[in-house]
């Protein structure tokens, strides 16, 4: 566990210094939100689509973040040194997952605020807990899948496009679950709060399953090629 925290701290420090989140991902994500608002140009339509647009933007942003987290490991063969540093691969996985989770958490909070400001979405006091739970569980799920599939393509040519091709279909249940649950948190007429919590349960199961799968598979995935 201590090694995982050391890896997470390193990843966060590298990202803080590189300012990828601040300079590239956050502007990209906010721009997408704005463009959706311009493209849909209809208040009722935007309100209905707000939750889906937030999580679709999160999906694309996750790909950017995950690509970067593996790029820094491969550009000077740091991953190879890491694997020969008495570090258990499972600790590398959870370290990278935790660092990605923190960044995605920040981004998702910004995007939810963006939806409230740009799309006029509202969250009643009773739905705040639901919204916080959605954001935490969905961010963990995104980080789990991103870290796992980032490892799958880390040593491949054309990994940028491959990551999108492999991860996006897997993330479809998360997109649906997070969108529906957020719709409930935004007080939509088409879904009640109880159903929103049911979707949160799906998000939690999704996050746990992919965390466990990543922990089990990461060592084999990181095995150096001949």
């Amino acid at each position, binding site marked *: 566990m201590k*090694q995982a925290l*050391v*890896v997470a701290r*390193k990843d966060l*420090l*590298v990202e803080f*210094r*590189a300012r990828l989140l601040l300079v590239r991902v956050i502007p990209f994500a906010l721009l997408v939100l704005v463009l959706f608002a311009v493209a849909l140009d209809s208040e009722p339509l935007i309100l209905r689509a707000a939750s889906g647009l937030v999580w679709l933007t999160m999906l694309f942003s996750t790909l950017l973040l995950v690509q970067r987290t593996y790029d*820094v490991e491969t*550009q*000077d*063969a*740091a991953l*190879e*040194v*890491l*694997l*020969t*540093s*008495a*570090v258990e691969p499972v600790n590398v996985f959870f370290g990278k997952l935790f660092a990605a989770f923190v960044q995605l958490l920040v981004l998702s909070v910004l995007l939810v605020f963006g939806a409230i400001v740009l799309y006029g979405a509202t969250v009643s006091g009773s739905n705040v807990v639901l919204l916080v739970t959605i954001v935490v569980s969905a961010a963990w799920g995104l980080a789990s899948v991103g870290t796992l599939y980032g490892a799958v393509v880390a040593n491949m040519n054309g990994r940028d496009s491959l990551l999108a091709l492999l991860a996006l279909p897997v993330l479809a249940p998360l997109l649906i679950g997070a969108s529906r649950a957020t719709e409930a948190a935004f007080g939509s007429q088409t879904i009640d709060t109880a159903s929103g919590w049911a979707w949160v349960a799906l998000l939690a199961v999704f996050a746990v399953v992919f965390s466990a799968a990543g922990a089990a598979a990461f*060592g084999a995935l990181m*095995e*150096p090629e*001949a």
Partner: protein
Amino acid sequence: MQPVTTNDTAIRLNDAVVALGGFPALAGASVSVGRGELVALRGANGTGKSTLLRLCAGLVPLTRGSAQVFDVNLADDRASVRRHVGLLGHRNGLYDELTSRENVEFTARLVGAHTRDVEDALARLRIDSRVASTRTRALSAGQRRRTALASLVVRRAQLWLLDEPHAGLDAAARDELDVILLEATSSGATVLYTTHETDRPGRAVPRTLLLAGGVVASDSPRQS
């Protein structure tokens, strides 16, 4: 050439073959290295020196023959040997956005070394406070190499595998590195390194293996 084995053998290769993309980068190497030995690997480019190091680090699979490192059979288990290995390849394994000191501290935290060990390692590699507080992407090749070596020093591995560790270092740093490697062997570590260096006056020549065509062509004992 048949390997000589002892009860205290760190590495034992017997007719080891490693095929990379179908090409036998190591084509039947046999060698035995005792614990605490310092061994230089020499040979022209493409003779299998780096592959031999990577085989011992558990980073490439054994195609044929046998290979044991610290009694771990590499044909069956390549992963468990890695926790005993400190590897320095052609690339340094550094994070560009971290400073020299932060890179060494990262390794230290992973292996549970103390802050004092970090300071000692930086001092041994003549990394002053200015260089230590500079991001590694802004450092020269020699400074980056010294940072990677400092990380290796705090790692305190049982088996040091270094691919041309002297490359990019100035004369003083090369001499200091030789001392560090000797000290590592004195404390029980086994050190294998590749080199193209010509012998320097006044410097003891370690046991030297000459590789040619993916096999160990000659094995010269240590000379004082």
